[in-house]
């Protein structure tokens, strides 16, 4: 509970408490503006913190955030980078369970799919799903859209996206050797993957 002591200076608020007027404040995280009576309210329990914009910005209003206490578990959003584990590879798509959204791990399971056209940026019609992913691979992907009722649509069509960790047939964690190949350190066998470029 170190956090509490650090942020005790901020006032503790609960959902529905008035934070101020939108003329003086911008609603940030955990706050919202109610249009019908023109008031900024809190929507979470937490500490009220004010962030002042740099002096040269056109909008001089500070942003009010409510932070510090519990927020609900992470939910995938459009544009977020997620870490997912591949569960099933089919001819036109692969399905994956989302494990992390940005830096936060999810509390509940979310399913995503990577379609054939979203695996890489070039020659998207020649992608072979089976030489891009295998079940059990850990993939870094971008959330393209909320998808359909079943799954989120994910994409790995960027250098830094793709397989970040994979096990070989022999059961060892493989070492990436190019953007399409990974090698098993035990057997020296080379397997095909859509490899993510890490740390470049």
């Amino acid at each position, binding site marked *: 509970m170190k956090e509490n002591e650090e942020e005790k200076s901020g006032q503790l608020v609960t959902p*529905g408490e008035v934070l101020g007027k939108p003329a003086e404040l911008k609603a940030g995280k955990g706050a919202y503006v109610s249009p019908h009576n023109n008031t900024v*309210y809190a929507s*979470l329990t937490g500490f009220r913190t004010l962030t002042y914009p740099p002096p040269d910005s056109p909008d001089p209003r500070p942003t009010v955030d409510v932070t510090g206490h*519990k927020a609900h578990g992470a939910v995938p959003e459009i544009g977020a980078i997620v870490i997912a584990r591949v569960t099933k590879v089919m001819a036109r798509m692969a399905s994956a369970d989302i494990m992390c959204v940005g830096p936060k791990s999810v*509390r*509940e399971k*979310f399913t995503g799919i990577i379609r054939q056209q979203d695996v890489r940026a070039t020659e998207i019609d020649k992608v072979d799903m089976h030489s891009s992913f295998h079940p059990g691979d850990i993939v870094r992907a971008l959330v393209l859209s909320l*998808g359909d009722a079943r799954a989120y649509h994910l994409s790995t069509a960027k250098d830094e996206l793709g397989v970040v960790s994979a096990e070989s047939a022999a059961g060892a964690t493989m070492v990436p050797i190019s953007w399409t190949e990974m090698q098993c350190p035990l057997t020296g066998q080379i397997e095909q993957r859509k490899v993510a470029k890490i740390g470049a």
Partner: protein
Amino acid sequence: MAGKISNTPATYMPSPTSQNKKMSSIFTGSDWVRPDGRGPHQCRPSFLRTGAVNYASGSAYAEFGNTKVIVSVFGPRESKKAMMYSDMGRLNCNVSYTSFATPIRGQASESKDLSSMLHKALEGAIILESFPKTTVDVFALVLESGGSELPVIISCASLALADAGIMLYDMVASVSMSCLGKNLVIDPVSEEESYQDGGLMITCMPSRNEVTQMTVTGEWSTPKIHEAMQLCLDACSKLGKIMRSCLKEAVTLPQE
């Protein structure tokens, strides 16, 4: 043996007619004493705590007199596969009774009705846009039924939602009222509820001063309804304050 059996009746039944007559004479009088000795406009003492269920994302326990309720909130989590796609989040509510909630086993009221009432009461207070495509599950369990369950469940659920960190427009407080003859009694116990001529429940967001749900049953006269609504709204705003202080306590005195 056979003769003995025929002498004793196969089923036991209290004679409700004589009891009813006794009660109704008290109820028609203007100075009606409540079974628990409260004043007509006095609510039951309440006890509220968040974090009753470790396993849930958020939970709360509420005790109003003899009515004891646990609400757990799960999610936001993936909606069921059969659900249509939606840009907004969904709320799923379920109310159930323990088998020992009522003095006689299995006498609990229809919990499906309560579930949809709970859903309607909470729906308006949740910022559903904050978790698109996903579902928040609210499970309420009535441990002991001592009257006015629904308002207790609603208030407790709103506390559990706040504990789970679900974005809310405001807390939701709910209070009910019974009309017994000439008397208006707030926060009725089961006994009073069973003899009421009319019942009224108001669910409101105290700080925004908005009503999310209002249910009126039975016989009411316009001035009575007016008075009851004023009393309920006032009680809601006071209950809201208690709920806020409960949430604040949970932050300042961590129970872990």
